[in-house]
């Protein structure tokens, strides 16, 4: 059975101010879900709900076709890159990768981590503490962190932020690859970021 991510009547309100409601959508393996909307339309809120770090006020997010899920395997399905995801900046890039693996309850594989850092062109900086990184380098490291455990659902919130041309090329490669092996979710207001999408949630319509 193919992996499927389904939302049922999602609604989120802060202080009774409704951010969005009645979000019903689904995305299956091999598909791309685009979450579009201008600033403040709730893209990030929806992303947080999808990857289970925020509870919806109403509705639910269901995952089918992933086998039995426990506290760890559910989290292991998701990889997230987003501006509000902070790194531990007193640690180096490699240490951050190892820490993330350990927090997922896994043994970090140093070789895979090095390969990942090479892929996002951070390998010369692997031992430097992250607080010395530029924002573009941090964004690259977030990609390495999101991909380290081979997530079946990759969620990218503002995927291109702070990236230079080289970085964008790397990210396009990552997106193409994810589409072949799982679900890709992209939240952005810049439609040139993404060229293929099968499903779309447009948060502007409501507003």
């Amino acid at each position: 059975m193919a992996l499927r991510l389904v939302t049922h009547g999602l609604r989120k309100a802060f202080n009774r101010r409704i951010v969005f409601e009645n979000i019903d959508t689904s995305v299956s393996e091999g598909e791309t879900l685009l979450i579009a909307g201008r600033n403040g339309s709730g893209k990030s809120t929806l992303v947080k709900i999808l990857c289970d770090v925020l509870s919806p006020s109403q509705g639910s997010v269901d995952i089918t076709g992933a086998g039995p899920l426990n506290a760890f395997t559910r989290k292991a399905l998701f990889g997230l890159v987003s501006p509000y995801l902070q790194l531990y900046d007193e640690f180096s890039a490699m240490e951050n990768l190892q820490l993330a693996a350990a927090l997922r309850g896994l043994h970090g594989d140093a070789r895979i981590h090095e390969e990942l850092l090479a892929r996002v062109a951070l390998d010369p900086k692997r031992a430097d503490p992250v607080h010395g990184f530029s924002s573009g380098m941090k964004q690259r490291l977030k990609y390495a962190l999101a991909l380290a455990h081979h997530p079946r659902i990759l969620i990218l919130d503002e995927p291109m932020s702070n990236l230079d041309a080289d970085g964008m090329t790397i990210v396009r490669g990552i997106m193409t690859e994810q589409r072949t092996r799982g679900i890709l979710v992209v939240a952005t207001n810049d439609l040139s970021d993404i060229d293929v999408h099968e499903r779309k949630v447009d948060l502007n319509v409501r507003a």
Partner: protein
Amino acid sequence: MSVRETTTLRWIRASLAVFLKDWRSELRTRYAMSALVMFVVTTISIILFSLGGEGASPEVLAGMLWVVIFFAAMSGLSRTFVMEEERGTGMTLQLLTPPGAVFAGKLLFNLVLGAGLTLLTVVLYAFFINGFIVRTLSIFLLTIALGSVGLAAASTIIAAIIARANTKGTLYPVLSFPILLPLLMTVINATRLASDGAPLGEAAGEFQILISYIVVVITVSTLLFEYIWKD
């Protein structure tokens, strides 16, 4: 069977990862430690100045010891959660690891920090405060051990609450004091018994109260932490 085993292993590994992360981060930044040490030193010197060479009764001194420990704990034990919230890394933790592992790791960290803090305070206190005598060492040591565990247990869950409330620690003593009062009253009484030279058996009731307090607080905190942690 094997799935269950690996899940248990993953819990242990993840909890230890949270603990080790905090520990190494603490070693690099001295975020909580320096404040704690300075607090203990300052408070003890203030007590020394205010006593002005005159002795106080062992009862008063037994109480004062725990005043120093309580306020030092209030200055340091909330850091572990407040730090995540201030730097915005709370969500990273939420994304990577289940709430139970976060709580276990943070509790472990606070236990170590709390034990270190209590030990430091007791050593400095015994060294500098003249009238402070312990006649029954066994009662005293048990009290110190159980007291620091209880202190760390109760302050960890309160720290989680105030970190979420974004109050930067001003509320910490206010919320902690009523929760910690049963513990403080018991340890002060037990310390007094130790100063008086009571036999070990006389403090058995105090130890029972301390142990059940620790068990109850840790159980309830574990059950409630998930609600605090996830928005």
